[in-house]
């Protein structure tokens, strides 16, 4: 291999990496200007931040108030995950190239799912609170729609990557689309889909904690109340409880997912 041969691709590679670095630097510069990111404030802010933490020594006398909203948080996440999964499944098959019915419905399904996925969960919640009023219902609806978006993207990527052989075999048998999906597609993707559903449940629990901030029910309402009343010790207790719950659910989810593979 002559040195000339290796020089050109080497030069191209070096150019690419320097180029990327340059783009990066420009981006960061713009970012600093646009957001007026105040670096010194970061340090004074950090000091204040730690002071806040000091004040948040948990006061567990507030505990009894916490259970009911906490339960509601989990219920919201659970219901949203279940309903979202049920609705997502037919949409996934509509949106995947190898199980779609026709190009138009596939395109419609894909666009719909992309939009669903691109709206932040808290924004969904705020939107539905404005339409449906305060409480758990807007939260459930919002997280359901959000779940459909997330699940459908993951699911459709999985469905499109399966072995096409069994699909061809079932076409040759004379089985229609739905039967083919049940016999040839589902067994290949079922374990992965359940894993995704558990993942979505995890995300929903975290989201559900927060949507109360915009009035969509759950423990977020308490969070906001404590913040507004500067009840930092209560806040500390709340955060510890949230921490334990999320830890539990994450642990359960990881355990269940490991059993599937």
């Amino acid at each position, binding site marked *: 291999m002559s040195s000339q041969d290796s020089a050109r691709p080497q030069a191209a590679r070096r150019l690419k990496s320097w180029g990327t670095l340059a783009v990066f630097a420009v*981006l*960061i510069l*713009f*970012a*600093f200007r*646009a*957001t*007026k*990111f*105040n670096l010194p*404030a*970061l340090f*004074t*802010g950090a000091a*204040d*931040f730690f002071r*806040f933490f000091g004040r948040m020594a948990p006061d567990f006398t507030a505990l009894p108030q916490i259970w009911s909203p906490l*339960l*509601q948080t989990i*219920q*919201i996440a*659970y*219901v949203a995950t*279940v309903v979202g999964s049920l609705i997502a499944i037919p949409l996934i098959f509509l949106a995947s190239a190898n199980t779609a019915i026709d190009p138009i419905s596939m395109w419609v399904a894909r666009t719909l799912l*992309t*939009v669903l996925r*691109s*709206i*932040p*969960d*808290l*924004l969904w919640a*705020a*939107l539905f609170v*404005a*339409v*449906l*009023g305060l*409480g*758990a*219902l807007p939260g*459930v609806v919002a997280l359901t729609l959000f779940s459909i978006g997330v699940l459908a993207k993951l699911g459709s990527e999985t469905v499109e990557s399966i072995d096409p052989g069994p699909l061809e075999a079932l076409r040759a048998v004379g089985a229609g689309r739905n039967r083919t999906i049940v016999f040839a597609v589902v067994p290949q993707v079922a374990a992965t889909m359940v894993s995704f559903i558990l993942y979505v449940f995890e995300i929903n629990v*975290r989201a559900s*904690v*927060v949507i109360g*901030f*915009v009035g969509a*029910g759950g423990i*977020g309402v308490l*969070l906001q109340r404590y*913040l507004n009343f500067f009840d930092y010790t209560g*806040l500390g207790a709340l*955060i510890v409880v*949230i*921490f334990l719950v*999320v*830890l539990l659910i*994450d642990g359960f989810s990881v355990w269940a997912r490991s059993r599937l593979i």
Partner: protein
Amino acid sequence: MVKTLQTPPTDIPRAPASVRRNRSLLIIGAALLVALFVLALVTMNLPTWSRVLSGLQRNAMPLLRGLVRPETSVFELAWNSMVTTFFMAILGTILGAVLAFPMSFLAAGNLLGGTRWALPGKAVLVAVRTFPEIVLAVIFVAAAGPGPTAGIMAMGIHSIGYLGKVFSDVIEGIDQGPMEAIRAAGGNQLHTFLFAVVPQVLPEFASNVLYRFEINLRSAAVLGMVGAGGIGLPLIQRLQFRRWAEVSMFIIVIVVFIIVVDAISSNIRRRLV
């Protein structure tokens, strides 16, 4: 027309015990999930149908009307806020990545000599991950004043929880071979790190940072609702005043922006790994 079989039914051999057990477990599991679902619905304190319908009547029509006819006069405001949001997400992600990088080494078992030495590091990362980002944002707003700085710091700190975990997972998954080779050739810790660890982990790090950026872009869009800068504040103000046409414009800007950024990011990520 269907072809049915008229063969005399021969013996159907019984399914082995394990298969039957799995079938029953599946049925019990499904029944449990359904029961929990019904329970959750019933006890969740949902409003009555009539309240829902009246709320829908009052708001749904104006909302839909606003959605189909977005208010173009606010486009510039929406666009500029979204651009600020975009830059917030960039800085927040970079901050998080920079801080997560050293943290990840403290949480990687194979670098510390065993998983148990990595446990405190992992625990810290979990704690940071679990702390609700929005509470972080509120605290930073109180500490550093309202505006994008608070949001950037909140996203930065929160991202450490995720990026730190992902980074440490990647480190734990690397091939020991190059590490051993360099040590055998006489290199010290630094050499090992630079020439055996970094090249293996860099592409996957970068891919995960991009993914985190996609998520942070969405967070940045909403953190403004508590005053942490970005498009969240003007959006929620308009939501609260039910200015549906303007809300619609904002949502369109947000969605399109996110879709485009997601597409570019997925493209880059695919080429990295």
